[in-house]
């Protein structure tokens, strides 16, 4: 997936919605941004959400731990977790090498698509990252 085509949360998760309408029932793929992976560095542990879990936008979706600290992954959307990237905890390097592809974390069937409106496009997100850098 191209980073330019994704939506982003302030907490550095990305979302890809795989239908043109993007309404309720659409499938959203969620991961964490290259910026977040770069900021965390030296990842040692990832906890995936359970399949079937109902999450609201802003709920914890799992956690990622680096040598330095542990961080929550927040769901950028509201819905039901229907699939997780089972191989990822044993291949944490994918988060760095391919954060928008093989580094995906979960697929969520949207329950309330309105939460998508609170997300940023790539331009706005890039600006947020630049601000956090300085």
């Amino acid at each position, binding site marked *: 997936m191209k980073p330019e085509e994704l939506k982003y949360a302030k907490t550095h998760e990305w979302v890809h919605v795989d239908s043109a309408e993007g309404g309720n029932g659409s499938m959203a793929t969620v991961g964490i941004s290259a910026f977040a992976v770069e900021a965390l*560095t030296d990842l040692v*542990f990832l906890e995936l959400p359970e399949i079937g879990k109902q999450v609201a936008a802003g709920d914890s979706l799992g956690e990622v731990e680096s*040598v330095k600290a542990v961080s929550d992954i927040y769901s950028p959307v509201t819905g039901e977790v229907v699939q997780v990237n089972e191989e990822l905890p044993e291949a944490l390097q994918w988060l760095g090498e391919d954060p928008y592809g093989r580094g995906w974390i979960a697929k969520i069937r949207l329950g309330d698509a309105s939460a998508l409106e609170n997300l940023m496009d790539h331009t706005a997100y890039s600006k947020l990252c630049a601000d956090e850098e300085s």
Partner: protein
Amino acid sequence: MNLTLAETPLHGWHTAHGAKMAEFGGWSMPIQYGSIVDEHHATRRAAGLFDISHMGRLIFRGDAAGPFLDHLLTRPVSQLGVGRVRYALLTNARGGTIDDVLVSRLEDSEGPFFLMVVNAGNLQKVTAWIESNRSECADADKEGSLEFEDRTLQQAMLAVQGPRAGEVLAEVCSADLAGMGYYTAQCTEIDAKEGIVSRTGYTGEDGWELIVPATHAETLWNRLAQVAGQLGGTCVGLAARDTLRLEAAMPLYGHELDEDISPLQAGLEFAVQLEGGSFVGRDALVQVAEQQDYRRRVGLVSSGRRAPREGYPVLVSGRGIGSITSGTHSPTLGVPIAMAYVDREFADVGTEVSIDMRGREERAEVVELPFYRRGDT
């Protein structure tokens, strides 16, 4: 309140070389230049170069300097020969730890003196403690002169650590480095400037620490960084300094030590000389030693994959028996490690405990410290 952060003489270099900077002890310090794990391994395998200019450096001169320091430190330094370095603690009247320090006995063109290196975040507190005790001593009409000076801002301090540290340092220092015993120090020329070199460190590796004039820091750093790089070493930030010292089970003030923790509780008996001593806090420590009912500092290795962090509860049969003071994923051992304080009956090596990792219990075992000893691999 200090609202602006102090900057080391190498601050500009760090930011120009992409270091992530953050506050530590009132200073803006490099946390990492790239990967923490890479910096950690480079130190264990070759050489790590550290900017530790934030450490406080205090100089004591005069006839009364030795007796005065003996009055404040958990073991005496007045009888140290020139060139010797000693680890000791400053304790309050309750036996709690004000700071852990290194004291070197040295001699320069102005005569003999003591150098005390203190933790960055404790410099103001230690300076105030010294001043208040000094006026008490003056009231008591103790004989002899005492000059006391804080040299922190005039100097830079660097550490070169790791199996190839000696080769790196030999580039800039013609002193007989290999001939220096561990915990010795000398005034010598470093890169043609007057400085102090000591065979000390905070990584569990062999290595040296250097003190040079602040104005010369960047020139020296560049030379050392270049040589270290050629030998497989690198510049190392505070994050890897923390994982290195944790593997070596060295206490970090604010985590394993504070004003309510005695050196005995921290397992630092080797640095406390109760017999014959008359230092501040001694009487309280004698009582602590008699009672023996305090929590002990222990090492834990967890069987899970998550790293224990400061403040996580340590449990036995669901009951809280202690808490984590420092923890990480050990880059050298590849497992989660931690230091913790636990009730004495659970402090024996081999004791099985669990750690409450954000609501989920992971099993862990009390192990012998340190986690890593050089030459073990």
